[in-house]
């Protein structure tokens, strides 16, 4: 199943978390969200956000510029 995609560009801190929350609302349970996040804090914030929300970080940061992430939405 192809992943939904959200490019949150340079958003960081609270704006990044809100952007992730909004993007994940559009994703079905258990489905994938691919994110591009270029803020330097994202490589720590996105794993932390996944631990808090219960979504699963499958991969990232990866890609040519190491700013992409693949997240599976929680099932419940």
């Amino acid at each position: 199943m192809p992943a939904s995609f959200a490019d949150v560009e340079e958003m960081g801190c609270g704006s990044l978390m809100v952007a992730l929350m909004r993007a994940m609302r559009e994703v079905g349970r258990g489905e994938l969200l691919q994110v591009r996040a270029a803020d330097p804090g994202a490589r720590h914030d996105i794993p932390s956000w996944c631990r808090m929300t219960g979504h699963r970080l499958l991969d990232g940061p990866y890609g040519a510029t190491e700013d992409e992430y693949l997240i599976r939405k929680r099932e419940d």
Partner: protein
Amino acid sequence: MAGNLLVSVTNAANDPDRATVGFVVANASAASGVETSVFLSTEGVRLSQRGYADDIHEEGFAPLRELIDSFVEAEGTILVCSPCFKKRDLSEEDLVEGAKIVGGAVPVELMVNGASCITY
């Protein structure tokens, strides 16, 4: 996720940097699924008034109006210190969406029940 966070915001246009960053952190918390309350006290209560934050845009951050709106969208709660509010002659009719006026018991109860607190 278990736990909740109380973000105490004690500044408004007098210190837009602190007021803004308080709501940035509150957004990070609420949008991460953590039960989050912003407690506005002293000068911070001015942020409870509709239109007050419209002209506050600290460089490097989203406009404060947007941050307050997204905090409410993320199901955050805005608590407004009653005596601080009354001292400044502010209007209950002009409260922003999601704001409620409370006495000290509400934030104290949150903290004694385990909420962590950070102050701006």
